[in-house]
């Protein structure tokens, strides 16, 4: 068993009540019965006051009094119950998004309340106007509407007013500018008309507009938050820990996020280095494939810079944690990422492009209406009222919903296909791509080795070995543990340093590890004779014995997905940091003619720049630290969830599961989504072509304005629902979710 993890960095102490709180991300929840199992299991532990599971985002909050409960005992208890748990700290981004969502929902509630109650008065006025309402009653109703509308709009309009103000200050044009202008003018004019006991006021239109637009934003935020919480859980469930050496030389295992710059970290053989740093002591061989894409091992010693994600194979290392230093690979990657990201941030979104055309046209139309009415002899008051009516009726309700509504539906569809969208404009950029560039290691191939001789071993032994492997942190054992159907590890498993792991189950000794440790040398030699590039792990249960071969494998549907992309006329290429022979083999297996090997991060960017010069728009798919600049530089980018941290941050979307099919789904769904967005913008244009002449000639009453606005918003929203189906040609022939590993599929379900 690995030593207990020191979780003290994640415990929140409430000084007032004396309660300690710990949040954990839980893996393995697959039905509602798990709620009771977990809450009762933890709640019965002595000292625990509250255990509450959030079934939606799979997180458990535990509270206890004083020092009664050891936090690692909670994690151990969860393991016994069959769940893997990792301390969870909501990322700053997620906290901001949660706060933003609560604010948006409050705005939505207030504008909804105001819209309903103002409509109560408006309907009375409209029906009164055609029957026998007195002007005193009408004025009273208008004043009551103003009393509700003004404070409600002042509060609920904040999201739009703020953005509009920011855009104006930066001399930008976004959709929020005409929205804010329309709302303010509608309210101002209605107030003026009420003061003068006029027949028409537009309080209901202004507030209803706010309500519809807020509804769009809330849905967008809900989708974004859902995606973010799944991504954050997956991060936490990677369960990255580091062994920290304090000044007295004592070692304790802590979650990676608790490690600070300047700390000394111990890395044992078989562990992944969890931090960026410089080796202080020790000699070892390392596999840096997640960093450089190379599958060859490097020899390293004191003074060498190492990067998070590197696998330590040989000996024990002491690593001093450092920030990026000048001249290191990480520094160069960060610099290239910043440069590339800067170029991409200049991409202009479809909605903003529409706003740039729309605003001047509408504002000029309003001005022309005003001047036109004055020229034919109307009073200044009537001319201005008519001009404002033009602005109110064109207030871009449908136009402002056209893109966000589609975005919500599309990112929901992507989520179902196993894709977590990170950059909101990623859909629009991915839709324009005509070339797909893959990294090899960890992208076309699986990040972990897979069992290669499944057919040759007894399935019962495989299951038992995999369950024993759950207790080990050795990379080969962890790869093997993916085969376990029951996720509960054996109790009292102990690690034998450098050899393997053993446990006694029902009086029978189980061993998993090197061939000599399991006394299976002859069997191992026989198995290895057939497959040279594989790693071997042996298992013994009493007298029975088995050896498992593990090796790098292509993702199961790689060939199929590549063929499907080619059939859709995407140009395909491989850019890899690995050696020529390894890349050539994969390229041949997949039939990709265009490939380059041995590339450094800057070389990958240069290769992408060449493609760009040829007029191609590239979707980059990669996972390594060395891919991060290319991911940021490409027109759009995708990373598997297993990717290095920097790559994660640079990708537009992450895909989960073992398959490569999400790449195809991303391209198909985003093309479809952009087509729907454009359709929606045209619907909005047609609506305006009908509504504007009515307004210009002064036929718009508040009743017509209310009907037109809600009608167009509903049409656009219904049309957006089409974006959930990919274009027929892009429809995957099988659901992607069935290919995701159990844990990830559960998280995404």
């Amino acid at each position, binding site marked *: 068993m690995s030593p207990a993890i020191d979780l003290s960095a994640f415990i929140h102490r409430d000084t007032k009540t004396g309660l300690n709180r710990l949040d954990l991300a839980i893996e393995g929840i697959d039905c509602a019965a798990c709620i009771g199992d977990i809450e009762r299991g933890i709640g019965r532990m002595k000292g625990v006051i509250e255990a509450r599971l959030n079934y939606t985002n799979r997180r458990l909050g535990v509270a206890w009094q004083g020092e009664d409960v050891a936090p690692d005992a909670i994690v151990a208890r969860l393991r016994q119950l069959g769940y893997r748990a990792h301390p969870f700290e909501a990322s700053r981004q997620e906290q901001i998004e949660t706060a933003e969502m609560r604010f948006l929902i409050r705005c939505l509630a207030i504008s909804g309340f105001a819209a309903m*109650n103002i409509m109560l008065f408006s309907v009375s006025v409209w029906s009164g106007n055609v029957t026998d309402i007195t002007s005193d009653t009408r004025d009273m109703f208008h004043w009551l509407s103003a009393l509700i509308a003004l404070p409600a709009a002042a509060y609920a309009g904040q999201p739009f007013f703020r953005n509009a103000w920011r855009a104006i200050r930066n001399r930008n044009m976004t959709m929020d500018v005409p929205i804010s202008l329309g709302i303010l003018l509608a309210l101002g004019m209605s107030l003026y008309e009420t003061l003068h006991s006029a027949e028409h006021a537009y309080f209901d239109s202004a507030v209803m507009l706010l309500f519809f637009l807020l509804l769009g934003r809330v849905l967008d935020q809900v989708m974004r938050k859902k995606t973010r919480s799944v991504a954050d859980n997956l991060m936490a469930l990677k369960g990255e820990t580091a062994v920290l050496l304090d000044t007295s030389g004592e070692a304790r295992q802590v979650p990676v996020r608790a490690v600070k710059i300047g700390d000394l970290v111990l890395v044992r053989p078989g562990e992944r280095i969890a931090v960026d740093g410089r080796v202080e002591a020790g000699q070892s061989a390392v596999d840096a494939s997640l960093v450089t894409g190379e599958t060859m091992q490097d020899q390293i010693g004191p003074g060498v810079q190492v990067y998070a994600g590197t696998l330590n194979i040989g000996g024990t290392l002491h690593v001093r944690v450092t920030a990026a230093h000048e001249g290191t690979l990480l520094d160069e990657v960060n610099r290239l990422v910043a440069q590339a990201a800067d170029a991409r941030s200049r991409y202009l979104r479809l909605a903003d492009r529409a706003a740039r055309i729309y605003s001047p046209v509408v504002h000029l139309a309003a001005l022309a209406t005003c001047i036109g009415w004055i020229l034919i002899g109307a009073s200044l008051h009537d001319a201005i009222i008519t001009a404002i009516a033009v602005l109110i009726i064109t207030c871009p309700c449908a136009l402002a919903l056209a893109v966000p509504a589609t975005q919500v539906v599309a990112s929901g569809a992507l989520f179902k296909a196993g894709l977590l969208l990170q950059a909101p404009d990623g859909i629009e950029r991915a839709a324009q791509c005509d070339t797909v560039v893959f990294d090899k290691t960890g992208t076309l191939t699986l990040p972990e080795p897979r069992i290669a001789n499944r057919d040759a071993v007894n399935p019962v032994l495989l299951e038992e070995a995999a369950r024993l492997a759950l207790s080990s942190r050795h990379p080969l054992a962890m790869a093997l543990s993916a085969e376990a159907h029951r996720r509960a590890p054996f109790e009292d498993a102990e690690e034998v340093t450098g050899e393997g792991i053993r446990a006694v189950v029902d009086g029978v000794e189980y061993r998993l590890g090197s061939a000599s440790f399991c006394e299976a040398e002859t069997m191992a030699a026989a198995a290895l004779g057939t497959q040279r590039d594989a790693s071997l792990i042996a298992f013994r249960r009493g007298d029975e014995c088995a050896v498992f071969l593990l090796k790098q494998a292509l993702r199961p549907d790689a060939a199929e997905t590549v063929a499907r992309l080619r059939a859709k006329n995407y140009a395909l290429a491989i850019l890899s940091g690995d050696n020529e022979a390894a890349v050539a083999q994969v390229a041949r297996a997949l039939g990709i003619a265009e490939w380059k090997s041995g590339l450094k991060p800057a070389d990958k960017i240069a290769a992408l720049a060449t493609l760009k010069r040829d007029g191609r728009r590239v979707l980059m798919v990669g996972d390594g630290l060395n891919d991060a600049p290319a991911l940021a530089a490409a027109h759009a980018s995708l990373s598997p969830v297993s990717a290095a941290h920097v790559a994660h941050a640079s990708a537009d979307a992450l895909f989960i599961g073992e398959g490569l099919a999400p790449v195809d789904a991303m391209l198909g769904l985003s093309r479809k989504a952009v087509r729907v967005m454009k359709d929606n913008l045209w619907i909005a244009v047609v609506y305006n072509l009908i509504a504007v002449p009515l307004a210009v000639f002064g036929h718009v009453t508040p009743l017509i304005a209310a009907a037109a606005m809600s009608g167009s918003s509903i049409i656009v929203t219904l049309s957006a629902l089409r974006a959930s189906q990919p274009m027929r040609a892009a429809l995957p022939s099988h659901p992607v979710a069935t290919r995701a590993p159990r844990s990830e599929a559960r998280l995404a379900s």
Partner: protein
Amino acid sequence: MTILVYLIPVALSLGLLALGAFLWSLRSGQYDDLDGAGARILDDHDLPDRRPD
């Protein structure tokens, strides 16, 4: 039309009551775990006397 003197305040205060109730439920975190709330109602083990030590 004197009926309006009662009806309008009644209508508005009912609306405000609903708004207040919604904002309270939002603040007390009742929308944080929508899937869980649906599943918990079927759980019979939440009675305190059935909880052994």
